[in-house]
């Protein structure tokens, strides 16, 4: 076959593809202005809501898996002793009443009566003791608390006593973590430290597991034996839970276009699509699009290994001066209303953990001063080890460009998340800078992984330790807020890592779904209109 014929075929192929795209694009649904929804006044019992998640975590065990998708499903099935309300304040959930000793070292918790697990057995103090011991041994937050816990005991079937070696102001918030969920003691024993298997997912929540097909679906149905709390106005994970929906179906859909098409055609009612789809979905009158609560805090992680360029505080300050945070936020492709121009380590709607201390340092941007400081620190090369997914890849490109712009040689390595984590751990001196985000809805400052000495960044500071101790010793909310402010100021003074901006994910929900308040993907108290 001649080259000319090849070329002619290629031209025909391209022309046909372009023509078909134009024809089918013309067939796409018209984009109209968003219509005002009319919320139905009275909740309606019944119906099944279908939710898409971008991957199957393989378990609903929130103690072992810290993935967001695990928590989205897990909170419908499991409950903790306490739960965070819409303002991220801990409220009793499985606990009826509690008492703290004057020295802050002993917590006596009385459990609610009449609570049963999905297998029909009644909640007992022994279940709580077993669950908490597993939480303390396996979960990231649990492992933080464990050194200060001297014992967890059950003097009777409805009382649990937690004894501490030192006061811990954030304990109730930490116990309100969904990861500190309560399960039957027999399940704890059977699971060992491994993630719970499908037949072990027995909680006290408003929905129970009925089907789990790995990689395909998770189906939950209303738990008829659920006994709700009475408080109607706490919101978040706390207070009254009404399971209006007969069931919730989770479908694992990783392809963005499939998520969008399914939302548009009503195949599912709740999704968290990517930033790229925000404008299109916002314009669809059959959907409601809104930022999700909490959000994430996007961070440039700096390595403190002696071999790292950023072991030097001058280099850390130089990088902060160099980074154009607005450019980094823009590179993510997120709409303006999803961005938070703040250097705080918590989301602004997370009042107990948010402080604006150090915002002036966050706002600094002076590449020339950065160049001088890098030279002063003797840094002429920066080794970046970053995940190859978005938005990390986009941030990496911006950072690489900015470093190159002031004459710094950049060595960029980009891998999947597991490889980045393993490389950073196994070769601690081989990298200077990485990228991550943390949960903006954290409930204590100690949960910020890049401030922990065991994290890949290996940051350690006596001053930070004493500030954390001061937070734990807080007697009340005001003292805790003051301690948070001091920690936030310290973070912008020492720059252990650099918060580049905050952002929110967003939910796209069918207008037929009412009562949904965009707190995570909580679906109790939501209902479907006919």
């Amino acid at each position: 076959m001649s080259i000319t014929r090849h070329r002619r075929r290629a031209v025909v192929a391209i022309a046909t593809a372009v023509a078909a795209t134009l024809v089918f694009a013309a067939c796409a649904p018209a984009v109209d202005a968003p219509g005002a929804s009319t919320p139905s006044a009275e909740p309606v019992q019944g119906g099944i809501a279908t939710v898409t998640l971008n991957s199957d975590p393989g378990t609903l065990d929130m103690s072992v898996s810290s993935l967001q998708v695990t928590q989205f499903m897990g909170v419908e099935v499991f409950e903790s002793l306490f739960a965070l309300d819409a303002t991220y304040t801990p409220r009793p959930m499985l606990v009826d009443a509690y008492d703290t000793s004057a020295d802050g070292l002993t917590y006596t918790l009385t459990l609610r009566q009449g609570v049963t697990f999905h297998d029909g057995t009644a909640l007992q103090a022994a279940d709580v003791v077993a669950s908490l011991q597993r939480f303390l041994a396996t979960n990231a937050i649990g492992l933080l608390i464990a050194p200060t816990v001297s014992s967890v005991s059950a003097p009777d079937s409805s009382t649990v006593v937690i004894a501490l070696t030192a006061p811990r102001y954030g304990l109730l918030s930490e116990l309100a973590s969904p990861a500190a969920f309560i399960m039957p003691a027999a399940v704890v024993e059977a699971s060992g430290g491994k993630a719970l298997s499908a037949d072990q997912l027995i909680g006290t929540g408003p929905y129970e597991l009925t089907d789990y097909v790995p990689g395909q679906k998770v189906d939950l149905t209303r738990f008829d034996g659920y006994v709700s709390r009475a408080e109607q106005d706490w919101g978040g994970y706390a207070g009254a839970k009404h399971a209006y929906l007969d069931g919730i179906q989770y479908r694992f859909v990783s392809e963005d276009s499939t998520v969008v098409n399914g939302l548009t055609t009503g195949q599912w009612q709740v999704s968290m699509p990517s930033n790229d789809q925000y404008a299109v979905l916002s314009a669809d009158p059959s959907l409601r699009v809104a930022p999700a609560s909490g959000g994430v805090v996007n961070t440039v992680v700096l390595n403190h290994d002696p071999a790292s360029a950023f072991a030097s505080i001058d280099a850390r300050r130089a990088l902060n001066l160099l980074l154009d945070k607005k450019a980094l936020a823009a590179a993510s492709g997120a709409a303006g209303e999803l961005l938070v121009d703040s250097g705080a380590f918590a989301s602004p709607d997370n009042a107990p953990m948010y402080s604006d201390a150090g915002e002036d340092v966050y706002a600094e941007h002076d590449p020339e001063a950065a160049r001088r400081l890098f030279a002063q620190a003797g840094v002429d090369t920066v080794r970046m080890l970053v995940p190859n997914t978005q938005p990390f890849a986009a941030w990496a490109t911006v950072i690489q460009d900015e470093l190159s712009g002031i004459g710094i040689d950049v060595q960029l390595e980009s891998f999947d998340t597991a490889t980045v984590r393993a490389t950073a751990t196994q070769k601690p001196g081989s990298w200077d800078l990485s990228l991550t985000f943390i949960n903006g809805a954290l409930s204590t400052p100690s949960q910020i992984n890049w401030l922990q000495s065991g994290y890949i960044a290996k940051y350690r500071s006596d001053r930070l330790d004493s500030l954390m101790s001061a937070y734990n010793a807080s007697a009340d909310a005001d003292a805790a807020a003051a301690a948070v402010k001091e920690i936030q100021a310290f973070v912008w003074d020492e720059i252990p890592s650099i918060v580049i901006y905050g952002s929110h994910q967003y939910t796209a929900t069918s207008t037929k779904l009412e009562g949904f308040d965009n707190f995570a993907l909580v679906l109790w108290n939501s209902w479907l209109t006919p």
Partner: protein
Amino acid sequence: MLPLILRRLRDLVIVLILVATAIFFIVRIIPGDPAIAIAGDQATQAQIDALRQTLGLEAPLWLQYLQFLGGLAIGDFGTSTTFNSPALPIILASLPPTLVLALTATVLSVAVAVPLTVATALHPGGLLARVVNRTNAVAVAVPEFWIALILTLFFAVRLRLLPVSGYADPFSDPLGAIRFLALPVIVLMINQVAVFSLNLRESVIGEMLHLYLRTARAKGLRERVVLVRHVVPNAALPAMTVVGLNLGTLLGGVVVLETIFVIPGLGSLLNQAVGTRDYAIIQGVTIIVAAMFVLINFLVDLAYMFADPKVRVS
């Protein structure tokens, strides 16, 4: 026949041991392990270390390898670290969607490609032949994901004739299965019909040059009969190899299409397992796909024997 089957069985065992060994070490060369994947990127190192201990990832590599081979010998593919349950049932549950999709697309593609090619061979300069030849070039060139997105936009989103995605078991819900499979099967067929048709056409053209056809025509056979009775059966032999290889590839999992159409097949499972470093699933899927590939090659060889007396004699 029996010696051939025994030889193939021996080959199957050798291939599976080689594949199992290769995949065992390849997945462990990749940095990152299941503990990191399960715990998530927010996990602390202490949590990851605790999980590694629980999952038995601290055992020496040689011991893990021997345990793996020992397990295989008794049909134990290990435990999925993601799902904390035996890997084999999970893999077998993902097999039917892939089998149904691959077999349906292949059978229908052959059913369309053979008569189409015969018709175009009868009238090489005709309108049908010109249209098919040009369409084939386009169909082979255009990527499947693009066709999938365009067809979904038109038939599912705009016309609402078919669902956007999903899968139904064809035995318990045949109508639902047809609705869910229609788009992915059509997408696969567009490419496969073109590939089969191009290959068969090349074979037919080559076969038409042979002298034995002069005898057939001298007997007074009509051209259509010469083509169907003599040319196509001989020309089909090389095409059968292409069909077999294509089917093997499809059974290995159509990752992109399974992802776009949310079909819970082997491709989706393997894709996820690589991300979560689920060694047992990765190894199991690879071994089963390799076994199927060997089996399909064997069936193609058998088909050769039945179709061609020369092969039978040799």
